[in-house]
């Protein structure tokens, strides 16, 4: 049960960073809220302060440019990405990942960065963003830093983010725009569900990359493959990378099997 946290809605980055620095671990960022409010209700997190960052006026928004590629801001919702004409044109894979998340009204609130920062092994935006070479821009009172998304996750619901830091943007390079590729998600029903496994695979000018969710403590990226590699080699690379478990949603064996099937089918599509 959620009892007793305070709420703040800073309007500037400086104010936000000040609050984060002052409250440390006791503060939680509220963007879409669709993970945070669930975690608070279940008692998984018990913040003393919840900071809504949607009122901050000097944050990046969803924009695309030939020079910088796609920039996704902290308040960019999953539906913003899903319905953005430029995304659909240049990164249809991201739209596909976005559509696979929850329901329409959830996607109206859930943010892309929130999906990544929550760092669930099955985060649906992760496999696509990993394949497309996304980078993460991190900011705090101490300054800014940037890293590849593949280096962002450190474990189940764990990332490199410090308590005073936020992800200010995720960028997707223009170089991977119009990569061929798709996302396959194994679910328990056709309606909204978490991924039992999720596989994205892209072919960018012959360079094949595979992003896999729900197959290890973090979303995985498999690089260094080409569209000339035999399917068995791509499957072998995926198999070497994954470490699936059996849980109430799915068995380890079926996860392994379905990842292999998805990799083969996706590879077939992009050759």
């Amino acid at each position, binding site marked *: *049960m959620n*009892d007793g946290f305070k709420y703040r809605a800073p309007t500037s980055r400086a104010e936000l960073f000040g609050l984060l620095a002052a409250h440390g671990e006791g503060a939680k960022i509220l963007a879409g809220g669709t993970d945070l409010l669930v975690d608070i209700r279940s008692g998984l997190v018990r913040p003393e302060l919840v900071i809504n960052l949607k009122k901050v006026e000097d944050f990046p928004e969803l924009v695309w440019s030939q020079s910088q590629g796609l920039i996704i801001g902290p308040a960019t919702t999953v539906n913003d990405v899903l319905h953005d004409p430029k995304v659909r044109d240049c990164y249809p894979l991201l739209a596909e990942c976005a559509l696979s998340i929850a329901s329409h009204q959830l996607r109206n609130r859930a943010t892309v960065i929130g999906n990544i920062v929550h760092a669930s092994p099955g985060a649906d935006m992760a496999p696509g963003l990993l394949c497309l070479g996304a980078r993460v821009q991190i900011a705090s009172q101490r300054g800014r830093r940037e890293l590849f998304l593949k280096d962002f996750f450190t474990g189940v619901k764990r990332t490199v983010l410090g308590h005073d830091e936020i992800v200010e943007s995720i960028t997707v390079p223009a170089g991977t725009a119009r990569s061929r590729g798709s996302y396959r998600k*194994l679910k*328990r*029903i*056709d*309606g909204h569900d978490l991924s039992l496994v999720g596989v994205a695979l892209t072919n960018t000018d012959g360079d094949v990359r595979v992003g896999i969710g729900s197959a290890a403590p973090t979303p995985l990226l498999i690089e260094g493959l080409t569209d000339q590699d035999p399917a068995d080699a791509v499957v072998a690379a995926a198999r070497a990378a994954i470490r699936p478990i059996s849980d*109430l949603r799915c068995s380890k064996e*079926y996860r392994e099997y379905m990842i292999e*099937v998805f990799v083969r089918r996706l590879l077939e599509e992009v050759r």
Partner: protein
Amino acid sequence: MSESTLPPAAAHVGDDVQRVDDAAKLTGGAMYASDLVFAGMLYAQVKKSPHARAKILAINTSKAKNLPGVHAVLTGKELDYRIGLYVVDKDVLAKDVVRHFGEAVAAVAAESLDIACRAVDLIDVEYEVLPPVLNQLDALDENSPLVHPDLGSYDYVKASFSPQPGTNIPNLTKIRKGDIDAGFAEAKWIVEREYTNPSVQHVPLETHVAIVEWKAGDEVTIWSSAQSPFTLRDLFCRAFKLPHNKVRVVIPHVGGAFGGKAGIHLEPLLACLSRKAGGRPVKFQATREEEFSLLPCRSALTYKIKTGVGADGRITAQKLLMYWDSGAYADYAVNVTRASAYSAGGPYDIPNAWVDAYTIYTNKPWGTAYRGFGHVEFFWGLERHMELVAEVIGMDPLEFRKKNLLKPGSTTLTGERINEHTGNPLKCLEAAASAINYGRLTPEEQERQARTGRRIGKGIATLHKAPAMPSFTSTAAVIKMNSDGSVVVNIALTEIGQGTATVVTQMAADRLRFPVSRVKVAVERDTDKDPFDWQTVASKGLLLTGNAVIAACDDLLRQAYLDAAQVLRAQTVDLDHDGEKIFVKQRPEESVTFAALSIGYVYPNGNGIGGPLIGLGRYTAQGLTSLDKETGQGLPALDWTYGAHGVIAEVDPETGEYTVIKIASAFDVGKVINPGTMRGQCIGGMIQGLGTAECESYIYDDQGHLLNPSLTDNKILTAKDLPEEIECIAVETPQLDGPFGARGVGEHPMISVAPALANAIHDATGAELTHMPVRSEDVWRAIHNRLPVDTWVTKAPAV
């Protein structure tokens, strides 16, 4: 009213009439128990056991009691009341031991929900954790721990149930028909297999909620989301030894129930909290998570079926062993066991049958009524088994079923003789099979199969069910005329979404020959104001309440005719009526309006005669008997509703993933009262049936902790999960004692959907599926681990 003035052909029955509760529900104006707030109301919260089986060593409530805003704190030790529907085995709060994960061990009432939540967090419970018994077959082992060591001392309904003291068996129901040994000796083939399904949740969108006020002088009022106000009152009064006229139960709109809100649940605990808090009303609504384990579920079942078949494909004998997992309390599970036992063979003619149906206690959340009342569970096995037997004997599954269907002259397992008015299972089966082009793929389907690489298969399954209820189940209706000639109908059958208010409106309107706009069924149910009804369960409401409403209309008309005869200086046989007035048949201009008679007729000089027109109707199930405890013989069935499903499924043979292309279902409802609401009941049940078939299941760890008490991990179907095509078909073989010839269909659409689906998947891939739900992973495993049918054949003709 005389015989000659029986109403003409129905004007509303059978026709499109919009639901009468639409406007309230569509505008947010309909008030549910969860919406109610009263002055001085307190909020309850419950401390729940994290263990499946444990001794309660100590409960420290002092911190909770000292929290400002807390008005009552209770533990089991303070309460000496036991509740139970058929076997009185449940304490209001756990005493000394906990018997399942999520069981209530302490409770608080506080001024706000937030304070109540903080207060239960402050209660410390010390447990000694004990090894639980989790599987019902393990619980039969003589070395198994006993969930209820005191079973032998519990009160129970002796006419219907047989607890076995010293065991984990609160009931064993036996059916014996014919000579089972001779039947198997006569058989050319004997086929034996076991089928299983887990516990599942009802998932009404409105979780259980109640508000109880227990004022000084033992004046108790209960507002609840319950299905059955009078049974709730009865069980409540028995537990607290209160007279019925001290306890009032009010049921406003109910946000779905499906059996889970039958009986009694939270009300006794809230009553005790209210009494302790000085009589303030106390409200509790279960969270979605609590709905899974603080409240009951549907029982798991292991069904062992042994079938003997003769050379001609006729079933010669069937031995049916049912092991029902009751969970920690007997509740409805003992009656699910009983009702399933007498239906266990399905709508088939089985000359020699043996049924042993056990209800078995385990350390899990307890099982209760759920739409289908056991039939969804056992038909899973039965209709998979019919498919297997057909395959073994080399007969088409449709032909095999048709050959063995009940027909006029057949007898049921309990010896009831079927006649031409009982209903027509053959017509249902043929309609469902025909709607899916059973037995072949159309050119379009062949093309689709070639295009997608997915395999298309078709499956059918039959079903039947009779209401599971006491042999003497009764109900009543009161119809009161207002001074403008409109009427209000009072019944205690609750409107839980099924459309009762609408079809009762139609039936009353037709019987009175009034437009539906002049008939209103009162919205709330109130045991102080409404006439008795047993329960809103079992698909019995339409028949019993329908007949009572018709009788009430006739009673009202009889009184109106008597008054009119006086006014018009005629005899009642001289009179007829239309929607507005009663008139002299020969000279219709001589008439008196219903409005003028409604509250007493007034002559021009001011003299009054007659009085308020109030009709009373009652109806009791006719001719039913208790079942013999040793043989199960007797007459338990008010009516049988037959049905059948046809399913077309498309399966990815590589991954086991599948989709349902079409489901077509036919039910013999006797007479369709309202096509739109009937189709709504059918589709709703069919999709709920697909949910139970495809994905729904309680999942426990080996210590009995429930792992998926949420909609995140206990998925129910969404709009995206619908089959591409859904077809509902009505068969109308009139039920001679049904209102307008009708019989109930509330539960039936959910029954046998699962085996129809699995039969289609089997047709497409050969996957032998014996456990439901059928997840894609299960199909994948079954495809890649195919066993020969000989595996299950224990007798076959020499080759």
